């Protein structure tokens, strides 16, 4: 286990990206893109979350076990959503 001090510039760049993505998602919501509005909004949210997890939460620098644990919660959320929708998508 090593202490990894991330340069300040990295944090500022990541924060800049986050703000840019925020502007992008609000902007994209102003246009009617048909069925694509929601997927785009979710993709942007996912990108923002990934940036926060990797850099602010140091998962990029952590050991593989932490990365597995960090992913585990989201994986189980996918199980919950996936099998629940197996019902809702195929109901008569």
């Amino acid at each position, binding site marked *: 286990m090593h202490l990894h001090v991330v340069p300040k510039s990295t944090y500022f760049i990541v924060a800049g990206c986050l703000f840019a993505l925020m502007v992008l998602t609000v902007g994209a919501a102003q246009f009617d893109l048909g069925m694509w509005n929601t997927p785009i909004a979710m993709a942007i949210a996912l990108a923002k979350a990934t940036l926060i997890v990797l850099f602010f939460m140091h998962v990029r620098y952590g050991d593989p076990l932490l990365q597995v644990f960090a992913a585990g919660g989201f994986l189980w959320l996918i199980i919950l959503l996936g*099998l629940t929708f197996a019902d809702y998508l*195929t109901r008569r």
Partner: protein
Amino acid sequence: MDEEAYPRRNYLNADYRFRSWLWTTDHKRIAILYMISVTLFFFIGGAAAVIFRLELMTPRGDLTIAETYNRLFTLHGVIMVFFFLIPSIPAVLGNFVLPMMLGARDLAFPKLNLASWYIFMIGGLMAVGAIVAGGADTGWTFYSPYSSLYSNSNVILMALGIFVAGFSSILTGLNFIVTTHTMRAPGLTWFRLPLFVWSLYATSLIMVLGTPVLAITLLLLAAERGLGIGIFDPALGGDPILFQHLFWFYSHPAVYIMILPSMGVISEIVACFSRNRIFGYTFVAFASLAIAVIGFLVWGHHMFVAGGSIYAGMVFSFLSMLVAVPSAIKVFNWTATLYKGSVSLETPMLYALGFIGLFTLGGLTGLFLATIAVDVHVHDTYFVVAHFHYIMVGGAVMGYLGGIHYWWPKITGRMYPEWWGRLSAGIIFIGFNLTFFPQFVLGYLGMPRRVHEYVDEFQVLNVMSSAGASILGVGYLIPLAYLIWSLRYGRLASANPWGATGLEWRTPSPPTTYNFDKTPVVREEAYQYDQDELLSV
């Protein structure tokens, strides 16, 4: 066997003051606190069972009215599931032996461990408070919209009690996982761990990943009932079946929270009392993880007749069958471990053998229920009741009692009376089967569960079941009596009375506060039972 003197200084006599127990961070003392608490809850839940088994002696409701009966089986279900079965083996036996099995001085977060007991007790008091206030009548499943809109009982307090107790479960699981990762003794690699540790690890995964979903579900239910914020309310367009999805996402895996630790205990006992290495160690270890993971993919088999999609039902049915594979691996491997072992039938072993048979029966009837066509026939009948009691009582409780007897010398430094132990194990086995086997027949003949009156044809089988329950009740009271007796009058136990492997047996009985004077180093695989050497003893 090495005869060591009763250690002068141990965790029990380190401090006699009352507050030294209430503020302890010693995992062993917290285990004792849990043991007393869950025993109390067990007998509260059991008392309800006594009343409704008496009621079911006759086809008419001559002891209780329907409303009382509903509250009784709800009480029984809620207390037994959330306040006995789920904490029993992990929080009592797991808490006590896990750090010792790892060669650690304590769990990774001792204060969190103590906090989890307090949280558990607060939740328990809320549930008991709900019972004293009149009880809930929804069944332990709290199905919406009955629980949220129609039932006139103490649903909110009961649900919040379970919500609170859930956090104690989460904290225990979190503590176990972290401890297993970071606190193993030098040389104790993953594949040298006792199988009890593997099963507790798998259990903890379920506790950590499943319980939060139950927490939010019960919170939404309480919000709907108390604040009128309708989430599952059909009048607003909400879907009560969504409640069932969220509820069973936790509550099906919760069955594995109850049975997996028991399986771990059985692995320890079977290896020790047949003086054999566990057959196929790796398979048994990974079977625990497989059960934990697959257990999350099968919850829909509780909802085959709820009105959801039939196609999803087929997927859930198929996935449910998959759980049988790792479960069968375990049963086969225990049996293979017995083969050519020098089997001795001490009390823990009697419970373990009982477990293997009863769990197999419970598991196989689970396959019936996972088949949609059969499930439509027996859904909500006594067949289901019998099935899950074979798993939860025949499995989980047998494992708990086996483990209590197995580690009793370590926990108290005293031996329990062996003859009484064997007697009560026999009584419990007979009483259990007499109670629950007739219920398979009753269910298959069509007797619905959760009713206090039934048609006259079912009376013979119901009387058999009630008679069995009284035998079972006696079987549970005998250990309570002789275990308490043994605290004072039991023979002093040596450090390793069973000649078992595992680091917990290398500490004195009872252990000192920090378990090991110096951190042990592990140089061998688990379960190195050398038969030749033992035969010569």
